[in-house]
């Protein structure tokens, strides 16, 4: 089905199911329980999961397949966002023109930056992309303030032209009248599920993005990219010019980033310059490696993992800690609160840093490897000494890099 073999079709269907059921799956605890703090099924975070999932899937097409480590993908994210907000300002709050244009403009941007940066490889390539992105960020934050509105972030003002704006048009982002912000809430005996239009829009695009990436991974083009990663020199000796292939991969991943940036602005009509900062570029690198570079699902898992930490752990304050441990005697309660305190709330960075280290030390293949180990554990219990299935996602063997 869909031009995929049976295994991949099943895989895709699982992804589709998981994506569509996210509002339910991420809300495992009833609202009244003290664990509701860990529920992540609210629109903004779910949208972020889908959008950063797209961003990471796109990044993985470049990094996972060709091994080129770009440190400047945030520039495309920012360009996408600015494009969409400018379309709001000029035309109307309909997100379609902006999204289409954000893909086109980020593709052009990626073509230029990629064409220059891909003249070098390895760390030289990384620094070139980093330099372009940091230049974009610094300029957007300061000198380009008339275009980007600088630190405040680009937003829509009432005196903007908005030429296509009708009298009854919604005053927030929408797709032909389907307002992104709106949602339906279902209260099921203590559980509250929020089905948000914006999330489902992102989810559908994310599924499409995933499908395209799946096709790229399985295509001869994808094979070619992998060959570049394995040994570019040998490719060149066979008389094949690898540059057009890497450039194509770079532009495709730039388009994914532009689309993700556009979607950010489509869910929330404001584009901040920080989106282009090196930390944002670094974040997508971390998401991809953390989840498992070169695997299909890994980057999405990594994106979800980081965004979850950022949004959930940072909100746990001392008051909440006390309410968790309230059932214990006072002395133990205070002791536990002091113990957990440095890792949550303002200390959420610390938790993130420790988790990064733990994952990369114990799971060299990222989170995906963790899941594979768990499922292997179950499988080997069921079928003793059965033939182990080969890694369905073409998990790349990490090539040893010895100091030269």
């Amino acid at each position, binding site marked *: 089905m869909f031009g995929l073999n049976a295994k991949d079709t099943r895989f895709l269907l699982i992804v589709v199911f998981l994506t569509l059921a996210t509002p339910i799956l991420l809300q495992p605890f009833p609202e009244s329980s003290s664990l509701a703090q860990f529920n992540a099924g609210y629109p903004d975070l779910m949208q972020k999961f889908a959008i950063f999932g797209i961003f990471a899937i796109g990044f993985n097409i470049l*990094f996972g397949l060709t*091994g080129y*480590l770009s440190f400047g993908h945030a520039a495309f994210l920012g360009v996408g966002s600015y494009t969409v907000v400018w379309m709001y300002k000029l035309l109307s709050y309909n997100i379609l023109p902006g999204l289409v244009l954000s893909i086109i403009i980020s593709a052009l941007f990626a073509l230029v930056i990629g064409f*220059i940066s891909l*003249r*070098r*490889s*390895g*760390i*030289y390539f990384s*620094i*070139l992309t*980093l*330099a*372009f992105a*940091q*230049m974009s960020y*610094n*300029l957007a934050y*300061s*000198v380009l303030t008339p275009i980007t509105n600088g630190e405040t972030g680009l937003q829509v003002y009432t005196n903007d032209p908005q030429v296509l704006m009708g009298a009854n048009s919604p005053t927030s982002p929408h797709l032909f009248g389907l307002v992104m912000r709106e949602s339906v809430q279902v209260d099921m005996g203590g559980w509250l599920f929020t089905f948000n239009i914006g999330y489902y829009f992102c989810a559908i695009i994310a599924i499409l993005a995933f499908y395209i990436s799946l096709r790229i991974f399985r295509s001869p083009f994808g094979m070619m990219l992998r060959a570049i990663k394995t040994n570019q020199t040998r490719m060149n000796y066979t008389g094949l010019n690898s540059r057009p292939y890497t450039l194509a991969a770079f532009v495709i991943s730039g388009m994914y980033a532009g689309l993700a940036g556009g979607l950010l602005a489509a869910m929330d009509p404001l584009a901040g310059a920080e989106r282009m900062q*090196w*930390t944002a570029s*670094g974040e997508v*690198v*971390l998401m991809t*490696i*953390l989840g498992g*570079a070169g695997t299909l699902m890994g980057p999405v898992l990594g994106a979800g993992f980081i965004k979850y930490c950022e949004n959930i752990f940072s909100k746990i304050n001392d008051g909440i800690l006390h309410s968790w441990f309230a059932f214990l005697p006072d002395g133990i309660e205070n002791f536990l609160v002091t113990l957990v305190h*440095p890792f949550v709330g303002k*200390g959420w*960075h*610390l938790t*993130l*840093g*420790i*988790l*990064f*280290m733990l*994952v*990369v*030390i114990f799971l*060299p293949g990222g989170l995906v490897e963790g899941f594979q180990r768990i499922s292997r554990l179950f499988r080997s219990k069921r079928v003793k000494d059965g033939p182990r299935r080969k890694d369905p996602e073409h998990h790349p063997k*990490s*090539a*040893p*890099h*010895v*100091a*030269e």
Partner: protein
Amino acid sequence: MEAIILQILNGLDKGSAYALIALGLTLIFGTLGVVNFAHGALFMIGAFCAVVMQRLLGLSYEQVDPTKTDFLGNPLKVQVPYVESWFGPEIGGAIVDWSVPLAIVLAIPVMVILGFVMERGLIKHFYKRPHADQILVTFGLAIVLQEVIKYFFGANPIQSGAPAALSGSFDFGAMLGFDPNVVIYPFWRLVYFLFSLVIIAGVFAFLQFTTFGMVVRAGMADRETVGLLGIDIDRRFTIMFGLAAAVAGLAGVMYTPILAPNYHMGMDFLVLSFVVVVVGGMGSLPGAVAAGFLLGILQSFASMNEVKSIIPGIDQVIIYLVAIVILLTRPRGLMGRKGVMED
């Protein structure tokens, strides 16, 4: 003319910091082949060694002064440093005043030990892993280190000044025959520049003139062969990691009077130092030093009003612009060797 001399001095000063950080980073790249994202954090820890020294020297007991009151109206508790009560206010005060240079004594063992522990405990296991994994684990470590510092010292910058004798400025121009009061420069910045030259010279001399250095250089060129010769190169690499950490730490200690240390200063320097290293050329120590000073001076010139009025914002992008131009004209930076980190 005066303006240009001053900007060259500014550039050399900025360049000293860039060069020292890049030097340490290159030692790690070159010897161990590890992309160390925690190097900025090492610089930051060095700076906080100065803060700790200041605190240690300032350790004090409370003395209630009934003549004054604090903000709640209670009698004021005056903090009297122990050193002042031991050595008398004059000598004690002088010791506290010189806390930044004295912190070097603290920073060297702390940084070397930290370097050893990092290398033996963590980095060692990542030699054979892809660079991406090295980035992730050292970045995680950098976050942990800076969060620990934030936990103990807070997020605000902490002032730790230069000794009073060196905190003034020096009429540089009068010596060179300019009008007085035109080309003046703070003493401490000159001290920092000289200090960095000494450290750089020391590292080069160590690698050039000692047997240990010779082996390490051989190891940088061809690790396997040196290993086959029966030399325990691993132990030497550990020591090199300690040395690199110490260089970063010392750069941080002496920089505190110029830049009040805060917990995220390492991240601010991280990206920049990578750009410096790559512009200098991977694995080349002279390249890293040269690129540090070059970028420092160019950045200073780009900050001049005359230049900014022609190209607004040039001071914010000059480093990246130079990096792009150099990498496009010289494929491996200024002095990089073929094949290092190009895969």
